[in-house]
């Protein structure tokens, strides 16, 4: 049985649809390996889904495919109904900037920019220049993640939990319809991890962004709308 069901349709029109997605690395070389063996997955709008699975099962690979950072070797990948496998790099980049927000395990903030600038960056990229509107939105987001006074600080001056909050604020700065988080709480203590998780849950409710969160923590997974598990490149129930 595949975990993909049409039963999610009641959560809204699918923001994400994967059909028979395969991903191989080292194609044409002796070390060619298939990491994902035909993934079918649908994510409804506003859904909050946990993706679990053992290390090396292909979770990050799947997330990077959905995030349009990599292209599948085979299969169909639709975002908001648009097929993405036919798009070129420039079009993928545009779609990524417009529709998707990322939160990585190791926050990946830009060290040369202040927290506020980091949060504004997706908007600056999108609009080509910083606007007062983007600044206001970034300040609101920073306040919402509890960092109202820390906008001027560089990432290096913030704790791990604070950095991850900035990363979440940044991922939400362009109102993405899909938020992807790869082990966002992986290297945080339990208390901070709970806070970060709650924050994403909050934005999911408030702003309606669909969320796909990779996590190893069964406690957090249990608090999601749905849990899907990846084992050896295949989704199991």
């Amino acid at each position, binding site marked *: 049985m595949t975990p993909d069901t049409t039963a999610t349709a009641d959560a809204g029109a699918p923001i994400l649809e994967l059909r028979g997605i395969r991903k191989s690395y080292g194609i044409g070389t002796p070390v060619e390996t298939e990491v994902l063996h035909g993934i079918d997955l649908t994510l409804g709008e506003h859904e909050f889904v946990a993706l679990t699975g053992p290390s090396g099962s292909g979770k*990050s690979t799947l997330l*990077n495919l959905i*995030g349009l*950072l*990599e292209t599948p070797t085979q299969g169909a990948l639709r975002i908001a109904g648009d097929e993405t496998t036919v798009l070129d*790099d*420039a079009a993928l*980049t*545009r779609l*990524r*900037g*417009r529709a998707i927000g*990322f939160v*990585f*395990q*190791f926050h*990946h*903030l*830009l*060290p*040369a*920019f202040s927290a*506020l*600038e980091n949060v*504004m*960056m*997706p908007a*600056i*990229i*999108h609009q*080509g*220049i*910083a606007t*007062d509107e983007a*600044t*206001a939105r970034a*300040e609101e987001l920073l306040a919402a993640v509890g960092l109202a006074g820390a*906008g001027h600080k560089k990432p290096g001056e913030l704790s791990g939990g604070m950095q991850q909050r900035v990363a979440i604020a*940044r991922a939400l700065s362009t109102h993405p319809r899909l938020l992807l988080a790869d082990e966002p709480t992986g290297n945080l203590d339990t208390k901070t991890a709970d806070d970060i998780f709650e924050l994403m849950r909050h934005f999911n409710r408030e702003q309606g962004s669909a969320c796909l969160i990779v996590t190893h923590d069964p406690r957090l997974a249990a608090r999601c709308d749905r849990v899907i598990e990846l084992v050896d490149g295949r989704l199991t129930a």
Partner: protein
Amino acid sequence: MARLIRPGPLHLPFEWLVALRFLREGRMQTFLILAGVTGGVAVVIFLTQLINQLQGTIIDKVLGSQAHVVIKPLDDLTRRALPADAPVAATVQPRAQRLRPLDQWEAVARLAEATPNVVAVSPVASGPAFAIRGGANKSVALIGMIPEQYRRVVKMDDYMTQGRFDVSGTNALIGVDLAKDLGVGLGDKLRVLAADGRDETLTVTGLFDMGSRDINRRWVFITLKLAQTLLDLPGSVSNIDLTVTDIFVADQVAARLGNQTGLTVESWMLTNSGLLTALTNQSVSNNLIRTFVILIVALGISSVLVVSVVQKQKEIGILRAMGTSRQRILTVFLLQGGIVGAIGSVAGTALAFGLLHLFSHIYKAPDGSQLFSAQLDPMLALAACGLATAVGVAAAALPARRASRLDPVQAIRV
């Protein structure tokens, strides 16, 4: 709610914002390439300015008393076609003391005036004579010319120590050394004796110093008409002097006029071929040095930016993941090269100016005058800055391409 909206760097376009921030973040590297560009631009400007000025001084000295192009009659020997059976004695029959006139010189002068790049045409009738004053007797060269035209070929007005550069009637201008030798001054009379006993008493109305002892001793300027009479050149001249727009096209002008008239047309480049070779060699070595300096600076910018791309791999990946196109990553790095080139070249221009100032005080001509001035040709400075900026952008091309082709996933995967 009080908004914390600051103006300033955040309000730059994305590419500028990121390029400037990356440069600021890479302190030591940025400083190093800035220093490299500054030094390179300073060397190029300093060297160019120095050599241009020195060459200008030398050329001015040489061409100050000499026409760029001179039209003369053909050599007699080459012109005179002898019958094959003519007795040998006839070929060596000299036309003793007879000056070779330039016939129909007005037509030649008109042709020269109509030639591209020619800015001044001055007919000259010149020949040998003796200047006599009391018991003293000096061998001189009579130079008959039209002052309005001659001064456009040789800057005589700059050389006059007394009187104006103008002659009429039997007035004459002589060199300061001849004046001393003969003991004459302004208003004094001077008798000149040319071939076949033709003579005239001249009134000295001006003294000149053309910077050459030989000229100051020998040249005597008189009217063209008087020279024609004294030298037995009725209605004709001995040569036509020309000034051209660019001294380095003199040989082309000479070749063209030579072909058209069949006369002997010589450019200063032919008569001073040794100097020309020296100047050319100097220019070639200057160009070589400049080329190497530019190459080294370009390589420096390139290698530092390549390192920077490797160091910024993660940031580039993050920017790409947030929706930055390859093109814009490319622009960010090209901009860094351009910014470093532009800022470095402004600093380099200032440094070159300082060096010129310093050297103009340290190195002086034997007589204590400045060998060169601390002046900076604004066009040269502008060209150097433009070139440095372009070189910066070009040098950044390779690292920028590398940056734009980075796989964002590789940068983000831990």
